[in-house]
């Protein structure tokens, strides 16, 4: 029993160490690599950006717009009792921008993109493709992990902004369609209470979430062991661990923003 617990502790510690060393070698290749004429291929960054960003647009749009609709209806249910239905607009906008849009977008992208990273790199690992890269003197972190990391780092905040807009649009549909709020008034109330800091705290979160998703996906992929089963395990683990870490990071960041009055 004790040896079992000890084993788990050691393995967890090794994994944390592994993720951090992957993070530092990604940073090394981004900032130090170009000085040594070892550029990351722009082509593969753009390819990954299309995969991460453009192909996620539809799912992020739908998740956010329905969240906006639900949020508007649920808050109207309570605000109606106080005759403050108009504040649905600001409630929807602020809770989306500060909290729901970054988190939900990150969760959707972790499920769609993080798992794809783990599965793709894991398959490459078990079919000796990673070893082939190493023999060709091509660093797998530079060649595979850095483009994915950069693509996610730039695209997730963009998707979050899309989530903000489509969520607010969802709230707008409910507010003007069913709650009979004047469209102009709805938009005015939205922007009256929505401050710039609400948006950039949300975006700060999404930069952190992007790093979590990319690191966990790539780490699980590059450390896959044992055939098709191993790829499956890596994929599942990448999603589960990213989900937990995203929620945990969200909690910590919200606390930091709250207590520092940002």
């Amino acid at each position, binding site marked *: 029993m004790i040896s079992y617990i000890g084993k788990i502790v050691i393995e967890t510690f090794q994994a944390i160490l592994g993720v951090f060393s992957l993070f530092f070698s990604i940073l090394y290749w981004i900032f130090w690599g170009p000085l040594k004429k070892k550029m990351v291929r722009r082509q593969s960054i753009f390819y990954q950006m299309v995969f991460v960003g453009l192909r996620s647009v539809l799912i992020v749009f739908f998740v956010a717009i329905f969240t906006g609709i639900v949020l508007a209806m649920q808050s109207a249910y309570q605000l109606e009792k106080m005759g403050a239905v108009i504040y649905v607009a600001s409630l929807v906008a602020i809770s989306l921008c500060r909290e729901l849009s970054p988190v939900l977008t990150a969760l959707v992208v972790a499920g769609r993109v993080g798992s794809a990273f783990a599965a793709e790199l894991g398959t*490459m690992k078990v079919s000796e*493709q990673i070893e082939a890269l190493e*023999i060709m003197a*091509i660093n797998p972190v530079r*060649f595979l992990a850095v483009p994915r990391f950069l693509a996610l780092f730039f695209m997730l905040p963009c998707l979050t902004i899309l989530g903000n807009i489509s969520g607010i649009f969802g709230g707008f549909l409910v507010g003007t369609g069913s709650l009979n709020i004047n469209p102009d008034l709805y938009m005015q109330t939205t922007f009256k209470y929505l401050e710039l800091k609400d948006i950039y705290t949300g975006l700060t979160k999404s930069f952190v979430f992007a790093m979590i998703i990319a690191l966990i996906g790539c780490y699980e992929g590059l450390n896959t062991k044992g055939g098709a089963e191993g790829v499956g395990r890596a994929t599942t683990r990448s999603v589960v661990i990213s989900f937990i870490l995203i929620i945990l990071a969200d909690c910590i960041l919200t606390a930091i923003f709250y207590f520092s009055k940002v």
Partner: protein
Amino acid sequence: MISNQSIPREIAISLKNVSKYFQGNKIIDNVSLDIFSGETFVIMGCSGSGKSTLLRLMTGAIRPDEGRILIKGKDITKISLEELDEVRKNFGMLFQYSALLDSLTVEENVALPLKENTKLADEIIKIIVKMKLSLVGLRGFEKHYPSQISGGMRKRVGLARAVALDPDIVFYDEPTSGLDPVVGGVIDKLIKDLSEKLLITSIVVTHNMPSVFNIADRVAMVHKGRIIEVNTPEGIKNSDNPYIKQFINGLPFGPIDFFKEDIAIEEILGL
């Protein structure tokens, strides 16, 4: 042929008392070996004998626990990854399952080491890729993806990629396994041609006996992590060593005993 034994020859790869452990088991046991420049050196042995591990030690994919490995006089066991990459620019390797990148076309796969490790212009890379592909008889398949071509063709693309940088040393991990005898023969011929025409040092891991006798200048037999004999193909054929006799004739019983440590069938059936 350059296998003239009287001329003192340059040593391409040298293993000195190399040992490797996996989870407490000694997989490679105190191996010392010299491989000369320009020769085709075959490492043969049963599955699990440690021959693939030996190959991966030479490529630097894994590092030994004891001993030294010298590539052209440079010890690769204690150098940094960057220095190892410099050494590896002289390497090519053909993998057992080809290990082509699925996401790239045949052409892009062969071009990859050239794009990443040289400063050649794209037009020149294109010409080199065409040359390498015609070397393995695969002109016209440039735009295909690895999943669209047969296993034998993938092996040939892998071979074209392995020699793309005109390496000094090429490693072959079971180059003919999983191929039909004719395609296997084609791969053998390509290996032989490359080593003779381009003076490449070839290290081939295989347990395919026709290959061994077709291509080898020298053969090493590995058993339980040890090299039990190094000889010419003729010497191996006429060897008195009971292990080698059993291996080259493919006999189920002999000194290499798979049944020894298991329970006898009679015991299982209760007879």
